Protein backbone atom coordinates (compact mmCIF):
# COMPACT_ATOMS: atom_id res chain seq x y z
CA UNK A 1 0.00 0.00 0.00
CA UNK A 2 1.49 3.35 -0.95
CA UNK A 3 1.22 6.57 0.98
CA UNK A 4 -1.37 8.05 -1.33
CA UNK A 5 -3.82 5.20 -0.85
CA UNK A 6 -3.32 5.32 2.93
CA UNK A 7 -4.05 9.04 2.87
CA UNK A 8 -7.06 8.70 0.61
CA UNK A 9 -8.54 5.94 2.75
CA UNK A 10 -7.91 8.06 5.83
CA UNK A 11 -9.65 11.02 4.18
CA UNK A 12 -12.53 8.79 3.14
CA UNK A 13 -12.97 7.63 6.73
CA UNK A 14 -12.76 11.15 8.14
CA UNK A 15 -15.17 12.34 5.47
CA UNK A 16 -17.60 9.59 6.38
CA UNK A 17 -17.49 10.53 10.04
CA UNK A 18 -17.94 14.22 9.19
CA UNK A 19 -20.96 13.37 7.06
CA UNK A 20 -22.42 11.24 9.86
CA UNK A 21 -21.86 14.07 12.33
CA UNK A 22 -23.51 16.64 10.04
CA UNK A 23 -26.54 14.41 9.45
CA UNK A 24 -27.01 13.42 13.09
CA UNK A 25 -26.05 16.67 14.81
CA UNK A 26 -26.96 19.29 12.20
CA UNK A 27 -29.65 18.11 9.80
CA UNK A 28 -31.71 15.89 12.14
CA UNK A 29 -32.25 18.57 14.87
CA UNK A 30 -33.14 21.11 12.16
CA UNK A 31 -35.79 19.07 10.35
CA UNK A 32 -37.30 16.90 13.08
CA UNK A 33 -39.87 17.97 15.68
CA UNK A 34 -38.89 17.73 19.34
CA UNK A 35 -40.96 14.58 19.66
CA UNK A 36 -39.38 12.88 16.62
CA UNK A 37 -35.91 13.97 17.70
CA UNK A 38 -36.53 12.34 21.08
CA UNK A 39 -37.49 9.12 19.26
CA UNK A 40 -34.34 9.31 17.14
CA UNK A 41 -32.33 9.75 20.34
CA UNK A 42 -33.89 6.54 21.64
CA UNK A 43 -32.99 4.71 18.41
CA UNK A 44 -29.42 5.98 18.68
CA UNK A 45 -29.23 4.30 22.10
CA UNK A 46 -30.26 1.00 20.49
CA UNK A 47 -27.69 1.64 17.76
CA UNK A 48 -24.96 1.92 20.43
CA UNK A 49 -25.88 -1.53 21.74
CA UNK A 50 -25.87 -2.72 18.12
CA UNK A 51 -22.30 -1.50 17.56
CA UNK A 52 -21.23 -3.73 20.46
CA UNK A 53 -23.28 -6.68 19.21
CA UNK A 54 -21.70 -6.27 15.78
CA UNK A 55 -18.29 -6.53 17.39
CA UNK A 56 -19.04 -9.47 19.71
CA UNK A 57 -21.32 -11.44 17.38
CA UNK A 58 -20.39 -10.34 13.86
CA UNK A 59 -16.65 -10.28 14.40
CA UNK A 60 -16.23 -12.50 17.46
CA UNK A 61 -18.89 -15.11 16.75
CA UNK A 62 -20.42 -14.82 20.24
CA UNK A 63 -24.21 -14.96 19.93
CA UNK A 64 -24.96 -12.39 22.63
CA UNK A 65 -28.66 -12.87 23.32
CA UNK A 66 -28.60 -11.08 26.66
CA UNK A 67 -27.24 -7.60 25.97
CA UNK A 68 -30.36 -6.30 27.72
CA UNK A 69 -28.58 -7.09 30.99
CA UNK A 70 -25.77 -4.62 30.33
CA UNK A 71 -28.18 -2.09 28.84
CA UNK A 72 -30.31 -2.52 31.96
CA UNK A 73 -27.37 -2.18 34.35
CA UNK A 74 -26.39 1.12 32.79
CA UNK A 75 -29.98 2.28 32.65
CA UNK A 76 -30.91 1.36 36.23
CA UNK A 77 -27.69 2.86 37.61
CA UNK A 78 -28.50 6.15 35.89
CA UNK A 79 -32.17 5.94 36.92
CA UNK A 80 -31.22 5.34 40.57
CA UNK A 81 -29.04 8.43 40.55
CA UNK A 82 -31.72 10.55 38.89
CA UNK A 83 -34.38 9.34 41.36
CA UNK A 84 -32.10 10.10 44.32
CA UNK A 85 -31.26 13.53 42.92
CA UNK A 86 -34.99 14.25 42.42
CA UNK A 87 -35.89 13.12 45.96
CA UNK A 88 -37.01 15.82 48.39
CA UNK A 89 -34.06 17.20 50.34
CA UNK A 90 -35.86 16.71 53.67
CA UNK A 91 -36.12 12.91 53.49
CA UNK A 92 -33.79 11.95 50.62
CA UNK A 93 -36.21 9.13 49.72
CA UNK A 94 -37.40 8.87 46.07
CA UNK A 95 -41.16 9.25 45.51
CA UNK A 96 -41.98 5.64 44.61
CA UNK A 97 -40.16 4.26 47.66
CA UNK A 98 -41.91 6.63 50.01
CA UNK A 99 -45.24 5.42 48.57
CA UNK A 100 -44.55 1.72 49.07
CA UNK A 101 -42.88 1.61 52.47
CA UNK A 102 -41.27 3.68 55.18
CA UNK A 103 -38.01 1.69 55.35
CA UNK A 104 -36.01 4.40 53.58
CA UNK A 105 -33.42 3.94 50.87
CA UNK A 106 -31.71 0.49 50.58
CA UNK A 107 -28.02 0.58 51.48
CA UNK A 108 -26.89 -0.30 47.96
CA UNK A 109 -28.66 2.74 46.54
CA UNK A 110 -26.66 5.15 48.69
CA UNK A 111 -23.41 5.31 46.66
CA UNK A 112 -25.38 6.50 43.63
CA UNK A 113 -26.36 9.76 45.27
CA UNK A 114 -23.01 10.86 43.89
CA UNK A 115 -23.05 11.69 40.19
CA UNK A 116 -19.36 10.85 39.80
CA UNK A 117 -19.76 7.41 41.39
CA UNK A 118 -22.74 6.76 39.12
CA UNK A 119 -20.88 7.71 35.94
CA UNK A 120 -17.92 5.50 36.88
CA UNK A 121 -20.24 2.64 37.85
CA UNK A 122 -22.06 2.84 34.51
CA UNK A 123 -18.80 1.90 32.80
CA UNK A 124 -17.19 -0.29 35.46
CA UNK A 125 -20.09 -2.50 36.57
CA UNK A 126 -21.05 -3.81 33.10
CA UNK A 127 -17.34 -4.27 32.35
CA UNK A 128 -16.71 -6.29 35.52
CA UNK A 129 -19.81 -8.44 34.97
CA UNK A 130 -18.74 -9.11 31.37
CA UNK A 131 -15.14 -9.93 32.34
CA UNK A 132 -16.18 -12.36 35.08
CA UNK A 133 -18.85 -13.97 32.91
CA UNK A 134 -16.66 -14.04 29.81
CA UNK A 135 -13.63 -15.59 31.49
CA UNK A 136 -15.76 -18.10 33.39
CA UNK A 137 -17.59 -19.31 30.27
CA UNK A 138 -14.92 -19.00 27.57
CA UNK A 139 -12.24 -20.68 29.70
CA UNK A 140 -14.62 -23.61 30.06
CA UNK A 141 -15.06 -23.49 26.31
CA UNK A 142 -18.76 -22.77 26.57
CA UNK A 143 -19.72 -21.42 23.17
CA UNK A 144 -22.23 -21.47 20.33
CA UNK A 145 -25.81 -22.18 21.35
CA UNK A 146 -24.81 -22.88 24.97
CA UNK A 147 -23.32 -19.43 25.37
CA UNK A 148 -26.40 -17.91 23.70
CA UNK A 149 -28.72 -19.74 26.11
CA UNK A 150 -26.60 -18.72 29.08
CA UNK A 151 -26.62 -15.06 28.14
CA UNK A 152 -30.35 -15.21 27.51
CA UNK A 153 -31.00 -16.88 30.86
CA UNK A 154 -29.08 -14.06 32.50
CA UNK A 155 -31.36 -11.50 30.85
CA UNK A 156 -34.41 -13.41 32.05
CA UNK A 157 -33.03 -13.69 35.59
CA UNK A 158 -32.24 -9.98 35.69
CA UNK A 159 -35.76 -9.02 34.59
CA UNK A 160 -37.33 -11.43 37.08
CA UNK A 161 -35.19 -10.08 39.90
CA UNK A 162 -36.20 -6.50 39.01
CA UNK A 163 -39.89 -7.44 39.07
CA UNK A 164 -39.47 -9.35 42.32
CA UNK A 165 -38.02 -6.38 44.20
CA UNK A 166 -40.51 -3.55 43.67
CA UNK A 167 -39.45 -1.68 46.81
CA UNK A 168 -35.93 -1.08 45.54
CA UNK A 169 -36.28 -1.34 41.75
CA UNK A 170 -39.81 -0.13 41.07
CA UNK A 171 -40.86 -3.66 40.08
CA UNK A 172 -42.58 -4.16 36.75
CA UNK A 173 -43.38 -0.45 36.46
CA UNK A 174 -39.69 0.34 36.62
CA UNK A 175 -38.29 3.78 37.36
CA UNK A 176 -39.76 6.84 35.69
CA UNK A 177 -40.87 10.44 36.16
CA UNK A 178 -37.36 11.91 36.15
CA UNK A 179 -37.27 15.68 36.58
CA UNK A 180 -33.64 16.64 36.22
CA UNK A 181 -30.38 15.43 34.71
CA UNK A 182 -27.28 16.51 36.65
CA UNK A 183 -28.95 19.78 37.55
CA UNK A 184 -30.58 20.45 34.18
CA UNK A 185 -34.35 20.30 33.92
CA UNK A 186 -35.56 17.57 31.59
CA UNK A 187 -38.63 19.67 30.73
CA UNK A 188 -36.51 22.27 28.95
CA UNK A 189 -36.33 21.52 25.17
CA UNK A 190 -32.80 22.97 25.02
CA UNK A 191 -31.62 20.41 27.57
CA UNK A 192 -33.41 17.64 25.70
CA UNK A 193 -31.61 18.71 22.52
CA UNK A 194 -28.34 18.62 24.46
CA UNK A 195 -29.08 15.05 25.57
CA UNK A 196 -29.79 14.06 21.98
CA UNK A 197 -26.47 15.59 20.88
CA UNK A 198 -24.64 13.70 23.64
CA UNK A 199 -26.21 10.47 22.40
CA UNK A 200 -25.22 11.25 18.80
CA UNK A 201 -21.66 12.05 19.88
CA UNK A 202 -21.45 8.87 21.96
CA UNK A 203 -22.66 6.77 19.03
CA UNK A 204 -20.09 8.32 16.67
CA UNK A 205 -17.34 7.72 19.23
CA UNK A 206 -18.39 4.09 19.62
CA UNK A 207 -18.41 3.60 15.85
CA UNK A 208 -14.89 5.05 15.74
CA UNK A 209 -13.75 2.67 18.50
CA UNK A 210 -15.36 -0.32 16.78
CA UNK A 211 -13.72 0.66 13.50
CA UNK A 212 -10.30 0.89 15.11
CA UNK A 213 -10.81 -2.52 16.72
CA UNK A 214 -11.90 -4.03 13.39
CA UNK A 215 -8.94 -2.79 11.34
CA UNK A 216 -6.39 -3.44 14.07
CA UNK A 217 -4.42 -6.64 14.50
CA UNK A 218 -6.78 -7.45 17.35
CA UNK A 219 -9.68 -7.34 14.88
CA UNK A 220 -7.97 -9.87 12.63
CA UNK A 221 -7.29 -12.08 15.62
CA UNK A 222 -10.94 -11.87 16.68
CA UNK A 223 -12.10 -13.00 13.23
CA UNK A 224 -9.54 -15.82 13.38
CA UNK A 225 -11.02 -16.84 16.74
CA UNK A 226 -14.53 -16.78 15.32
CA UNK A 227 -13.60 -18.97 12.35
CA UNK A 228 -11.15 -21.45 13.88
CA UNK A 229 -10.85 -21.05 17.63
CA UNK A 230 -8.82 -24.22 18.14
CA UNK A 231 -6.25 -23.19 15.55
CA UNK A 232 -5.71 -19.89 17.37
CA UNK A 233 -4.91 -21.85 20.51
CA UNK A 234 -2.16 -23.77 18.70
CA UNK A 235 -0.58 -20.48 17.69
CA UNK A 236 -0.02 -19.64 21.35
CA UNK A 237 -3.02 -17.37 22.02
CA UNK A 238 -5.70 -17.90 24.61
CA UNK A 239 -9.02 -17.42 22.78
CA UNK A 240 -10.86 -16.88 26.09
CA UNK A 241 -8.98 -13.61 26.66
CA UNK A 242 -9.49 -12.42 23.09
CA UNK A 243 -13.22 -13.10 23.18
CA UNK A 244 -13.70 -11.69 26.67
CA UNK A 245 -12.16 -8.40 25.54
CA UNK A 246 -14.68 -7.99 22.70
CA UNK A 247 -17.54 -9.10 24.95
CA UNK A 248 -16.50 -6.52 27.55
CA UNK A 249 -16.34 -3.69 25.02
CA UNK A 250 -19.82 -4.68 23.83
CA UNK A 251 -21.08 -4.70 27.43
CA UNK A 252 -19.69 -1.24 28.19
CA UNK A 253 -21.26 0.14 25.00
CA UNK A 254 -24.62 -1.35 26.03
CA UNK A 255 -24.25 0.08 29.54
CA UNK A 256 -23.59 3.61 28.27
CA UNK A 257 -26.51 3.25 25.85
CA UNK A 258 -28.79 2.32 28.75
CA UNK A 259 -27.58 5.25 30.83
CA UNK A 260 -28.43 7.69 28.01
CA UNK A 261 -31.73 5.94 27.26
CA UNK A 262 -33.08 6.81 30.74
CA UNK A 263 -33.05 10.63 30.54
CA UNK A 264 -33.96 10.61 26.83
CA UNK A 265 -36.96 8.26 27.09
CA UNK A 266 -37.89 9.04 30.68
CA UNK A 267 -38.58 5.47 31.82
CA UNK A 268 -36.76 2.20 32.32
CA UNK A 269 -38.63 -0.98 33.19
CA UNK A 270 -37.99 -4.75 33.05
CA UNK A 271 -39.71 -4.68 29.64
CA UNK A 272 -36.66 -2.84 28.29
CA UNK A 273 -34.02 -5.26 29.57
CA UNK A 274 -35.41 -8.82 29.42
CA UNK A 275 -35.29 -11.48 26.73
CA UNK A 276 -37.62 -9.86 24.22
CA UNK A 277 -35.74 -6.53 23.95
CA UNK A 278 -32.42 -8.41 23.96
CA UNK A 279 -33.53 -10.39 20.91
CA UNK A 280 -35.02 -7.27 19.35
CA UNK A 281 -31.59 -5.62 19.52
CA UNK A 282 -30.03 -8.63 17.85
CA UNK A 283 -32.57 -8.68 15.02
CA UNK A 284 -31.63 -5.17 13.94
CA UNK A 285 -27.98 -6.23 13.80
CA UNK A 286 -28.78 -9.36 11.79
CA UNK A 287 -30.91 -7.45 9.30
CA UNK A 288 -28.36 -4.69 8.87
CA UNK A 289 -25.40 -7.02 8.45
CA UNK A 290 -23.58 -8.18 11.54
CA UNK A 291 -20.03 -8.39 10.19
CA UNK A 292 -19.94 -4.82 8.87
CA UNK A 293 -19.26 -1.59 10.74
CA UNK A 294 -22.39 0.37 9.80
CA UNK A 295 -24.78 -2.52 9.11
CA UNK A 296 -25.64 -3.04 12.81
CA UNK A 297 -26.13 0.72 13.36
CA UNK A 298 -28.42 1.24 10.38
CA UNK A 299 -30.24 -2.05 11.01
CA UNK A 300 -30.94 -1.20 14.64
CA UNK A 301 -32.18 2.30 13.78
CA UNK A 302 -34.33 1.01 10.92
CA UNK A 303 -35.91 -1.76 12.99
CA UNK A 304 -36.62 0.58 15.91
CA UNK A 305 -38.09 3.16 13.54
CA UNK A 306 -40.24 0.55 11.78
CA UNK A 307 -41.42 -0.74 15.13
CA UNK A 308 -42.61 2.69 16.23
CA UNK A 309 -44.29 3.68 13.00
CA UNK A 310 -45.89 0.31 12.30
CA UNK A 311 -47.11 -0.30 15.84
CA UNK A 312 -48.77 3.11 15.71
CA UNK A 313 -51.02 1.64 13.00
CA UNK A 314 -51.05 -2.11 13.68
CA UNK A 315 -50.36 -2.52 17.40
CA UNK A 316 -50.06 -6.32 17.36
CA UNK A 317 -48.72 -6.81 13.86
CA UNK A 318 -45.19 -5.66 14.51
CA UNK A 319 -44.00 -8.72 16.42
CA UNK A 320 -45.06 -10.99 13.56
CA UNK A 321 -43.42 -8.80 10.95
CA UNK A 322 -40.22 -8.63 13.00
CA UNK A 323 -40.09 -12.42 13.24
CA UNK A 324 -40.81 -12.81 9.55
CA UNK A 325 -38.14 -10.31 8.60
CA UNK A 326 -35.61 -12.09 10.79
CA UNK A 327 -36.41 -15.48 9.25
CA UNK A 328 -36.13 -14.09 5.72
CA UNK A 329 -32.74 -12.55 6.43
CA UNK A 330 -31.35 -15.65 8.12
CA UNK A 331 -32.61 -17.92 5.35
CA UNK A 332 -31.79 -15.87 2.25
CA UNK A 333 -29.34 -13.16 3.24
CA UNK A 334 -27.19 -14.37 6.15
CA UNK A 335 -24.89 -11.38 5.72
CA UNK A 336 -27.79 -8.97 6.22
CA UNK A 337 -28.80 -6.07 3.98
CA UNK A 338 -25.17 -4.91 3.89
CA UNK A 339 -24.38 -8.01 1.82
CA UNK A 340 -27.24 -7.36 -0.62
CA UNK A 341 -25.12 -5.43 -3.14
CA UNK A 342 -22.20 -7.92 -3.25
CA UNK A 343 -24.62 -10.86 -3.40
CA UNK A 344 -26.50 -9.31 -6.32
CA UNK A 345 -23.22 -8.53 -8.10
CA UNK A 346 -22.06 -12.13 -7.76
CA UNK A 347 -25.41 -13.38 -8.92
CA UNK A 348 -25.40 -11.18 -12.01
CA UNK A 349 -21.81 -12.06 -12.85
CA UNK A 350 -22.70 -15.71 -12.43
CA UNK A 351 -25.69 -15.38 -14.77
CA UNK A 352 -23.77 -13.44 -17.39
CA UNK A 353 -20.91 -15.93 -17.57
CA UNK A 354 -23.46 -18.78 -17.57
CA UNK A 355 -25.10 -17.50 -20.68
CA UNK A 356 -21.75 -16.64 -22.26
CA UNK A 357 -19.95 -19.90 -21.60
CA UNK A 358 -22.92 -22.16 -21.08
CA UNK A 359 -20.99 -23.72 -18.20
CA UNK A 360 -22.68 -23.28 -14.86
CA UNK A 361 -20.38 -23.47 -11.87
CA UNK A 362 -17.30 -22.00 -13.52
CA UNK A 363 -18.05 -18.50 -12.34
CA UNK A 364 -18.84 -19.79 -8.86
CA UNK A 365 -15.15 -20.46 -8.24
CA UNK A 366 -13.83 -17.46 -6.34
CA UNK A 367 -11.28 -15.28 -8.04
CA UNK A 368 -7.66 -16.15 -7.40
CA UNK A 369 -8.34 -19.78 -6.60
CA UNK A 370 -6.61 -21.12 -9.68
Amino acid at each position, binding site marked *: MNIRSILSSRWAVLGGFALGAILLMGVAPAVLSDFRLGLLGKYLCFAMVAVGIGLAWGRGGMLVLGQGVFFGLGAYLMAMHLKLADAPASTGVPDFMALISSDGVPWWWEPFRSGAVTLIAIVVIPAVVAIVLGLATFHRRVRGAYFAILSQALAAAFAIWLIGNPRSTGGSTGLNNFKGFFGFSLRDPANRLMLYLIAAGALLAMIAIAR*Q*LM*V*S*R*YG*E*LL*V*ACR*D*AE*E*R*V*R*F*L*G*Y*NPATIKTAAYTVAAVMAGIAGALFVPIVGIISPNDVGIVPSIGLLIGVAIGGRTTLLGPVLGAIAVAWAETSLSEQFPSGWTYLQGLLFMLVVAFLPGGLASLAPTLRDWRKHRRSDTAAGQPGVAAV*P*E*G*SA
Partner: protein
Amino acid sequence: MNTGFNRDYLQISDLRVSFDGFVAVDGVDLVVLPGDLRFLIGPNGAGKTTLIDAVSGLVPATGSVQWAGTELLGRKVHRIARLGVGRTFQTATVFENLTVLQNLDIAAGAGRGVRTLLRKRSQVPESVTEVLATVGLTELADAQAGTLSHGQKQWLEIGMLLVQNAKLLMLDEPVAGMSAEEKDETGELLQRIAADDRTVICVEHDMDFMRAFAASVTVLHAGKVLAEGSVADVQADPRVQEVYLGPGAHTAAEVEAVMGEAH
Protein backbone atom coordinates in the same frame (compact mmCIF):
# COMPACT_ATOMS: atom_id res chain seq x y z
CA MET B 1 23.99 -35.61 15.26
CA ASN B 2 24.88 -35.27 18.91
CA THR B 3 23.07 -34.77 22.16
CA GLY B 4 25.30 -31.97 23.42
CA PHE B 5 24.14 -29.52 26.08
CA ASN B 6 21.55 -26.84 25.49
CA ARG B 7 20.06 -28.63 22.55
CA ASP B 8 16.29 -28.52 22.24
CA TYR B 9 15.12 -32.06 21.82
CA LEU B 10 11.98 -34.07 22.41
CA GLN B 11 12.01 -36.90 24.89
CA ILE B 12 8.86 -38.93 25.36
CA SER B 13 8.86 -41.56 28.11
CA ASP B 14 6.17 -44.12 28.83
CA LEU B 15 3.45 -42.04 27.22
CA ARG B 16 -0.05 -43.45 27.66
CA VAL B 17 -3.35 -42.11 26.35
CA SER B 18 -6.65 -43.87 26.85
CA PHE B 19 -10.21 -42.99 25.92
CA ASP B 20 -12.88 -44.67 28.05
CA GLY B 21 -10.75 -47.75 28.58
CA PHE B 22 -9.46 -47.94 24.99
CA VAL B 23 -5.70 -47.51 25.09
CA ALA B 24 -4.68 -45.48 22.04
CA VAL B 25 -1.05 -44.91 23.03
CA ASP B 26 0.41 -47.60 25.23
CA GLY B 27 3.77 -46.78 26.80
CA VAL B 28 5.64 -45.06 23.99
CA ASP B 29 9.28 -44.02 24.45
CA LEU B 30 10.63 -41.70 21.78
CA VAL B 31 13.56 -39.32 21.40
CA VAL B 32 13.77 -36.92 18.47
CA LEU B 33 16.77 -34.62 18.04
CA PRO B 34 17.04 -31.27 16.25
CA GLY B 35 17.85 -31.56 12.57
CA ASP B 36 15.93 -34.82 12.35
CA LEU B 37 13.06 -35.33 9.93
CA ARG B 38 11.27 -38.15 11.71
CA PHE B 39 8.40 -39.97 10.08
CA LEU B 40 5.77 -41.66 12.22
CA ILE B 41 4.16 -44.46 10.27
CA GLY B 42 1.87 -47.34 11.12
CA PRO B 43 -1.51 -48.77 10.21
CA ASN B 44 -4.74 -46.90 10.93
CA GLY B 45 -5.43 -46.76 14.65
CA ALA B 46 -1.77 -47.19 15.56
CA GLY B 47 -1.88 -44.04 17.70
CA LYS B 48 0.18 -41.72 15.50
CA THR B 49 -2.15 -38.72 15.57
CA THR B 50 -3.06 -39.36 19.21
CA LEU B 51 0.63 -39.18 20.05
CA ILE B 52 1.04 -35.70 18.59
CA ASP B 53 -2.31 -34.71 20.12
CA ALA B 54 -0.85 -35.63 23.51
CA VAL B 55 2.40 -33.74 22.90
CA SER B 56 0.52 -30.61 21.79
CA GLY B 57 -1.78 -30.73 24.82
CA LEU B 58 -5.01 -31.60 23.01
CA VAL B 59 -5.66 -34.85 24.90
CA PRO B 60 -4.69 -35.72 28.48
CA ALA B 61 -1.94 -38.31 28.85
CA THR B 62 0.25 -39.92 31.50
CA GLY B 63 3.98 -40.50 31.41
CA SER B 64 6.36 -37.75 30.43
CA VAL B 65 6.92 -35.47 27.44
CA GLN B 66 10.03 -33.35 27.88
CA TRP B 67 10.71 -30.64 25.34
CA ALA B 68 13.98 -28.72 25.77
CA GLY B 69 14.00 -29.83 29.40
CA THR B 70 10.42 -28.70 30.13
CA GLU B 71 7.60 -31.09 30.95
CA LEU B 72 4.71 -30.53 28.55
CA LEU B 73 2.09 -32.86 29.98
CA GLY B 74 -0.51 -31.00 32.03
CA ARG B 75 0.09 -27.68 30.30
CA LYS B 76 -2.54 -25.89 28.28
CA VAL B 77 -2.44 -25.93 24.49
CA HIS B 78 -1.52 -22.26 24.10
CA ARG B 79 1.22 -22.52 26.75
CA ILE B 80 2.78 -25.47 24.94
CA ALA B 81 2.60 -23.52 21.67
CA ARG B 82 4.45 -20.64 23.30
CA LEU B 83 7.26 -23.02 24.24
CA GLY B 84 7.97 -23.47 20.52
CA VAL B 85 5.85 -26.52 19.77
CA GLY B 86 3.70 -26.21 16.65
CA ARG B 87 1.47 -28.60 14.76
CA THR B 88 -0.80 -28.94 11.75
CA PHE B 89 -3.92 -31.02 11.27
CA GLN B 90 -5.01 -33.64 8.75
CA THR B 91 -7.47 -31.18 7.28
CA ALA B 92 -5.68 -27.90 6.76
CA THR B 93 -7.20 -25.34 9.11
CA VAL B 94 -6.34 -21.84 8.07
CA PHE B 95 -8.39 -18.71 8.71
CA GLU B 96 -10.37 -18.79 5.48
CA ASN B 97 -11.83 -15.28 5.74
CA LEU B 98 -8.42 -13.68 6.22
CA THR B 99 -5.66 -13.20 3.66
CA VAL B 100 -2.51 -15.29 3.51
CA LEU B 101 -0.60 -12.33 4.91
CA GLN B 102 -3.06 -11.88 7.80
CA ASN B 103 -2.84 -15.59 8.60
CA LEU B 104 0.93 -15.41 8.86
CA ASP B 105 0.85 -12.12 10.76
CA ILE B 106 -1.43 -13.65 13.39
CA ALA B 107 0.83 -16.69 13.66
CA ALA B 108 3.83 -14.38 14.19
CA GLY B 109 2.15 -12.36 16.92
CA ALA B 110 1.50 -14.49 20.01
CA GLY B 111 3.93 -12.35 22.00
CA ARG B 112 2.47 -8.98 20.98
CA GLY B 113 1.44 -6.46 23.60
CA VAL B 114 -1.92 -4.76 23.87
CA ARG B 115 -0.70 -1.53 22.25
CA THR B 116 0.54 -3.32 19.14
CA LEU B 117 -2.64 -5.37 18.93
CA LEU B 118 -4.87 -2.32 19.02
CA ARG B 119 -3.10 -0.72 16.07
CA LYS B 120 -3.39 -1.43 12.41
CA ARG B 121 -0.49 -3.33 10.87
CA SER B 122 1.70 -0.58 9.45
CA GLN B 123 4.29 -2.83 7.85
CA VAL B 124 4.75 -6.49 7.18
CA PRO B 125 7.06 -8.12 9.76
CA GLU B 126 10.34 -9.28 8.27
CA SER B 127 9.81 -12.86 9.38
CA VAL B 128 6.50 -12.94 7.48
CA THR B 129 8.11 -11.68 4.27
CA GLU B 130 10.85 -14.31 4.55
CA VAL B 131 8.44 -17.13 5.21
CA LEU B 132 6.16 -16.09 2.35
CA ALA B 133 9.13 -16.67 0.06
CA THR B 134 10.13 -19.91 1.83
CA VAL B 135 6.74 -21.52 1.33
CA GLY B 136 6.30 -19.98 -2.13
CA LEU B 137 3.20 -17.90 -1.41
CA THR B 138 4.62 -14.40 -1.95
CA GLU B 139 2.40 -13.72 -4.95
CA LEU B 140 -0.68 -14.91 -3.10
CA ALA B 141 -0.01 -12.79 0.02
CA ASP B 142 -3.22 -10.78 -0.41
CA ALA B 143 -5.41 -13.70 -1.51
CA GLN B 144 -8.10 -14.95 0.86
CA ALA B 145 -6.81 -18.14 2.49
CA GLY B 146 -10.13 -19.81 1.70
CA THR B 147 -9.43 -19.57 -2.03
CA LEU B 148 -6.10 -21.44 -1.85
CA SER B 149 -5.72 -24.95 -3.22
CA HIS B 150 -5.36 -27.82 -0.80
CA GLY B 151 -1.59 -27.94 -1.24
CA GLN B 152 -1.22 -24.19 -0.83
CA LYS B 153 -3.19 -24.35 2.41
CA GLN B 154 -0.81 -26.97 3.76
CA TRP B 155 2.14 -24.76 2.82
CA LEU B 156 0.47 -21.82 4.51
CA GLU B 157 0.09 -23.94 7.63
CA ILE B 158 3.76 -24.88 7.53
CA GLY B 159 4.58 -21.20 7.00
CA MET B 160 2.48 -20.34 10.06
CA LEU B 161 4.56 -22.77 12.12
CA LEU B 162 7.72 -21.10 10.86
CA VAL B 163 6.72 -17.51 11.68
CA GLN B 164 5.44 -18.79 15.00
CA ASN B 165 9.09 -19.81 15.39
CA ALA B 166 8.18 -23.35 16.36
CA LYS B 167 11.31 -25.40 17.01
CA LEU B 168 9.34 -28.63 17.14
CA LEU B 169 7.04 -29.04 14.14
CA MET B 170 4.52 -31.86 14.13
CA LEU B 171 2.76 -32.33 10.80
CA ASP B 172 -0.23 -34.60 10.36
CA GLU B 173 -0.29 -36.03 6.83
CA PRO B 174 0.98 -32.86 5.15
CA VAL B 175 0.99 -34.30 1.59
CA ALA B 176 -2.39 -36.07 1.60
CA GLY B 177 -4.20 -35.08 -1.58
CA MET B 178 -1.20 -33.34 -3.16
CA SER B 179 0.10 -33.88 -6.68
CA ALA B 180 3.49 -35.58 -7.17
CA GLU B 181 5.18 -32.23 -7.82
CA GLU B 182 3.62 -30.63 -4.77
CA LYS B 183 4.75 -33.60 -2.68
CA ASP B 184 8.34 -33.17 -3.85
CA GLU B 185 8.26 -29.46 -3.10
CA THR B 186 6.81 -30.14 0.34
CA GLY B 187 9.44 -32.81 1.06
CA GLU B 188 12.27 -30.50 0.07
CA LEU B 189 10.75 -27.73 2.19
CA LEU B 190 10.63 -30.06 5.21
CA GLN B 191 14.26 -31.07 4.66
CA ARG B 192 15.29 -27.40 4.56
CA ILE B 193 13.33 -26.74 7.75
CA ALA B 194 14.97 -29.66 9.55
CA ALA B 195 18.40 -28.53 8.34
CA ASP B 196 17.71 -25.21 10.08
CA ASP B 197 18.16 -27.04 13.40
CA ARG B 198 14.48 -27.63 13.97
CA THR B 199 12.88 -30.88 14.98
CA VAL B 200 10.32 -32.14 12.48
CA ILE B 201 7.89 -35.00 13.10
CA CYS B 202 5.70 -36.07 10.24
CA VAL B 203 2.76 -38.47 10.50
CA GLU B 204 2.34 -40.00 7.06
CA HIS B 205 0.63 -42.81 5.18
CA ASP B 206 2.33 -42.08 1.87
CA MET B 207 5.15 -44.62 1.72
CA ASP B 208 6.79 -43.16 -1.41
CA PHE B 209 6.94 -39.76 0.23
CA MET B 210 8.33 -41.29 3.43
CA ARG B 211 11.00 -43.22 1.54
CA ALA B 212 12.09 -40.17 -0.42
CA PHE B 213 12.40 -37.70 2.43
CA ALA B 214 12.54 -39.39 5.85
CA ALA B 215 15.77 -39.01 7.82
CA SER B 216 14.52 -41.57 10.31
CA VAL B 217 11.35 -43.56 10.90
CA THR B 218 9.36 -44.77 13.89
CA VAL B 219 6.74 -47.43 13.27
CA LEU B 220 3.80 -47.47 15.65
CA HIS B 221 1.42 -50.38 15.98
CA ALA B 222 -1.46 -50.73 18.44
CA GLY B 223 -0.16 -47.84 20.50
CA LYS B 224 3.38 -49.19 20.86
CA VAL B 225 6.67 -48.52 19.11
CA LEU B 226 7.24 -51.49 16.82
CA ALA B 227 10.48 -50.46 15.14
CA GLU B 228 12.73 -47.45 14.77
CA GLY B 229 15.68 -46.55 12.57
CA SER B 230 16.54 -45.59 9.01
CA VAL B 231 14.11 -46.24 6.17
CA ALA B 232 16.08 -49.32 5.11
CA ASP B 233 16.22 -50.72 8.68
CA VAL B 234 12.50 -50.37 9.12
CA GLN B 235 11.65 -51.86 5.73
CA ALA B 236 13.84 -54.87 6.44
CA ASP B 237 12.28 -55.47 9.85
CA PRO B 238 10.15 -58.64 9.74
CA ARG B 239 7.76 -57.34 12.43
CA VAL B 240 7.01 -54.27 10.31
CA GLN B 241 6.44 -56.46 7.27
CA GLU B 242 4.04 -58.57 9.31
CA VAL B 243 1.99 -55.53 10.34
CA TYR B 244 1.73 -54.23 6.82
CA LEU B 245 1.49 -57.52 4.93
CA GLY B 246 0.20 -60.09 7.41
CA PRO B 247 2.03 -62.95 9.12
CA GLY B 248 4.44 -65.31 7.34
CA ALA B 249 7.45 -64.88 5.08
CA HIS B 250 7.27 -62.30 2.29
CA THR B 251 9.13 -62.01 -0.96
CA ALA B 252 11.17 -58.94 -1.76
CA ALA B 253 8.65 -58.07 -4.49
CA GLU B 254 5.75 -58.11 -2.02
CA VAL B 255 7.59 -55.89 0.42
CA GLU B 256 8.55 -53.51 -2.35
CA ALA B 257 4.95 -53.27 -3.53
CA VAL B 258 3.73 -52.02 -0.16
CA MET B 259 6.70 -50.34 1.44
CA GLY B 260 8.72 -49.31 -1.57
CA GLU B 261 12.15 -50.28 -2.72
CA ALA B 262 14.85 -50.59 -0.05
CA HIS B 263 17.85 -48.36 -0.61
